[in-house]
């Protein structure tokens, strides 16, 4: 039976509407689905282009590339003052470290770089040995290499260390020391022993309750007054301890967040199979807890890395302070000197922080925590 209103063959295929397929349509859907959003796209694109052009014009096109001193950089319409960066670059890396002794700092950079690479890249074997070297031998080695006074090396006191060298020393010390101290504090705060719990809580709350600047000031200005004359611990050492304790308090809270995310059943199950407290923590709880809080940990690291610039307030010549002190050099003081210095400074800090951020994303993917959203 055939019905007049029922088709017997398929309707001819028609091409998809031009407005919903193809590159053009996709672009339009993403950037200008309505006239108003189209306008917004144009405005934002124009702003971006304008910003990019301003930076490129300043940093490249109208920049001064070579000059013996400030004169050229001070001309009307001059852009970035690159000769200033060139003249001061090595100072920014090594600070006041004696020029003929800089190979020692280079050696420290090289050893640290190789060891860190070995630790960070999963494919490289000998992780255990490498970790032993990096966390125990390397710090001692760094100290003796940089300070000297042994093995025929000239003594270079810590007040001559500076620039990126000091920034990395402060950041790495803070990062490496804050992790174990922070974990212990976090466990202490959740402990059932009242003394341990209250001491840990008090430490965390007190240290978190004051700004890092205050901690550094106390260490550098007030501390010497309470010491017998002649006893004045090294300024850098005081800053290192201050930064490490400060970041440990924050780390403790990050780790505690991870501990709270682990279901109670995990604790009970570990205890049921007869694990001691430390083995339970080491084998069952911590591996899970730390995985959960990787973003938080890296967040702490990044903010710590940037906080290292605060040591400049107590007169330590870290990268930030070193760059700034160059602005006042009468040979280079010009309208663009400061801008150029801060521009480079920003790029350096950004490069380090961005690298840390990317690495943490990589680790998260690799560990596949199952908590990812």
């Amino acid at each position, binding site marked *: 039976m055939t019905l007049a209103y029922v088709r017997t063959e398929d309707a001819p295929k028609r091409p998809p509407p031009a407005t919903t397929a193809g590159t053009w349509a996709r672009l339009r859907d993403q950037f200008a689905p309505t006239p108003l959003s189209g306008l917004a796209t144009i405005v934002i694109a124009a702003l971006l282009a304008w910003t990019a052009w301003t930076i490129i014009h300043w940093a490249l096109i109208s920049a001064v590339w070579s000059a013996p001193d400030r004169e050229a950089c001070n001309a009307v319409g001059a852009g970035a003052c690159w000769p200033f960066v060139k003249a001061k670059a090595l100072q920014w890396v090594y600070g006041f470290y004696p020029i003929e002794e800089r190979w020692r700092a280079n050696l420290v950079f090289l050893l640290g770089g190789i060891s860190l690479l070995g630790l960070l890249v999963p494919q490289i074997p000998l992780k255990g040995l490498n970790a032993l070297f990096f966390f125990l031998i390397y710090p001692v080695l760094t100290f003796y290499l940089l300070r000297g006074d042994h093995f025929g090396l000239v003594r270079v006191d810590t007040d001559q260390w500076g620039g990126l060298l000091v920034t990395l020393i402060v950041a790495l010390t803070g990062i490496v020391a804050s992790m174990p101290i922070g974990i212990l504090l976090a466990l202490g705060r959740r402990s059932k022993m009242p003394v341990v719990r209250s001491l840990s809580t008090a430490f965390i709350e007190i240290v978190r309750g004051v700004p890092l600047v205050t901690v550094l000031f106390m260490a550098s*200005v007030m501390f010497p007054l309470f010491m017998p004359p002649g006893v*004045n611990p090294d300024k850098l050492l005081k800053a290192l301890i201050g930064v490490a304790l400060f970041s440990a308090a924050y780390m403790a809270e990050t780790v505690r967040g991870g501990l709270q995310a682990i279901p109670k059943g995990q604790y009970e199950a570990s205890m049921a199979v007869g694990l001691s407290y430390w083995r339970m923590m080491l084998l069952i709880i911590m591996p899970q807890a730390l995985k959960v809080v990787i973003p938080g940990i890296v967040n702490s690291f990044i903010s710590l890395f940037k906080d290292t610039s605060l040591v400049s307030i107590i*007169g330590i010549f870290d990268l930030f*302070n070193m760059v700034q002190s160059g602005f006042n*050099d009468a*040979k280079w003081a010009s309208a663009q000197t400061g801008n150029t210095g801060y521009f480079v400074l920003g790029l350096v800090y950004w490069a380090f922080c961005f690298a840390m951020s990317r690495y943490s994303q990589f680790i998260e993917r690799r560990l596949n925590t199952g908590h990812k959203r």
Partner: protein
Amino acid sequence: MKSIKSLILASVFGLAATVAASAGTLDDVKARGQLICGSNPGLTGFGTPDDQGNWTGFDVDFCRAVAAAVLGDAKKVKFVPLSAKERFTALQSGTIDVLSRNSTWTMSRDSTLGLSFAGVTYYDGQGFLVPTKLGVKSAKELGGATVCVQTGTTTELNLADYFKANKMEYKVVAFEKNEEVLKAYQEGRCDVYSTDQSGLYAEVLKFTTPTDHMVLPEIISKEPLGPVVRQGDAQWFNIVKWTYYALLNAEELGVTTANVDEMKTSANPEIQRLLSIKSKNEDGTEADNDFGKGLGLGPDWAYNAIKQVGNYGEIFDRNLSQLKIARGKNALWRDGGLQYAPPIR
């Protein structure tokens, strides 16, 4: 509340001072073979690192002169850059031997901190920067002007006093940060920029058209800057004070780095006393003219300082002429300035 705080502070500082002052600074410096000098972490013309990382500047050179006088070598000095907040405690706790870091001599610092100012190496004070197109040649012509200043400093108070005393009207545009003040001035939001005069000269360096601006000659406040030592060590205080006076006397007598060797044969008794050259008295006896002895220093104390660092005028020119700072109040007394040294005799 405030008095309790200052009492505690004073007792803490006082204790530190008495404890630290018990050792002789001169002996310490000699034993160490190095002078430790508190310096500025970065102030144009007064203390900045150059391209090789050597500290240069007016305050820094003064420390070099002290090192040359005491140890015979201007290079035997270690600079400890200090922030404004930690400078005095560093001196009190004995971390540094002398503080040469544009510190203003005030009564309270002299009387309550356990410190002594050894002289005024630089007379600074609040000054005015104006665009040349304003056509003003003196601060007395600033009636009705808009003045850009930083808030929370004595700058504003000094300004009020000065304009009131001279019966002139003015308007203040104040900002929290120095950079903002400077920007406002450059954008023409005010006619005048006011801060310490040495600071004005340093800022002009950063202007793209420095010739369009001028620093007015007047100074309306007193900011006497000088080296500081711990109270209670009279010998060390004298050494720092007389090193400064020796540099001044050298300029007055025309003794420079270049001619100090020739000057050793000079017949001028004042130069002979400055450089410890033996001379004949009128009765035929020999005067050894060794004034370093009284300081506990060798006879070459002033010679070394002048030879290796230069006299006061040379130090001034080397560090501050590139900022186009005029001698002004820092000219020698005979040229109408305030720099006056007691005689060496």
